[in-house]
């Protein structure tokens, strides 16, 4: 018999700013309910914001299209997967923006993917069945009370 996974949560969201808002509020409630360390919760929120806002802004999705986000907690890690039907885009293959050196030449934007790498040690991408799947695994510190 398949048991329901109490530590999994699936979000089916409109691909717009309202969807992103729903996601961040839902993940915040999940983080509180599960007692995630605040720095881990921050990292999850940051990577989701960057990844989902990329899909919304650059995915070329038609109006009314949805984005699916799965959040589950297993094996000492929080695993998040984002699935969308936008144009094929592998953020892991994107070239980094030039470093910021001085204000006169500073380029605006393009910092999101670099931040994902700084806040998540384990990111994977695959394109399958016309969809992008971007997966993040955030290790939880060992020996947490209640873990």
């Amino acid at each position, binding site marked *: 018999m398949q048991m329901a996974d109490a530590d999994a949560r699936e979000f089916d969201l409109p691909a717009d700013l309202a969807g992103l*808002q729903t996601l961040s509020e839902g993940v915040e409630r999940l983080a509180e309910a599960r007692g995630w360390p605040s720095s881990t919760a921050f990292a999850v929120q*940051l990577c989701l914001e960057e990844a989902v*806002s990329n899909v919304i802004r650059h995915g070329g999705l038609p109006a009314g299209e949805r984005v699916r986000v799965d959040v589950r907690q297993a094996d000492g890690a929080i695993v998040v997967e984002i699935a969308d039907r936008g144009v094929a885009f592998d953020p892991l293959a994107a070239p980094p923006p030039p*470093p910021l*050196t001085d204000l*006169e030449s*500073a380029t605006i934007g393009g910092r*999101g993917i670099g*931040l994902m790498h700084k806040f998540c040690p384990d990111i994977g991408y695959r394109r399958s069945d016309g969809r992008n799947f971007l997966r993040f695994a955030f290790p939880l510190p060992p020996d947490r009370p209640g873990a």
Partner: protein
Amino acid sequence: MRMQTEDIGGGVTKASLDGRLDIAGAQAIDLPFNVLVGQKRAIVVDLSGVDFIASMGLRTLIMGAKTVASKGGRIVLLSPSADVRKVLEDSGTTAILKIHSDLAEAVAAVAAPR
């Protein structure tokens, strides 16, 4: 996301941000922040009330700093939380926007002649 501004003397303006500086937060303060950086030359941006920042929030801060710098002025950041500080450092933003944890130091940094 809210922004409150206060003239703290010596030609220095303190802008206190409060809330989440995510894509929606950046959208909410872009206009008032753009007006502020268009008008003022010495600005301390108090981040102590900001509990989240992502790249669109960085974009707002960097654009503002560029505008002020183009007039020979300066912006510094005051008292971000540990998580917000990590975003500022890891993105390389602190190379062009300095962080201070003391208001008097921050004021001295923006009021100093270039």
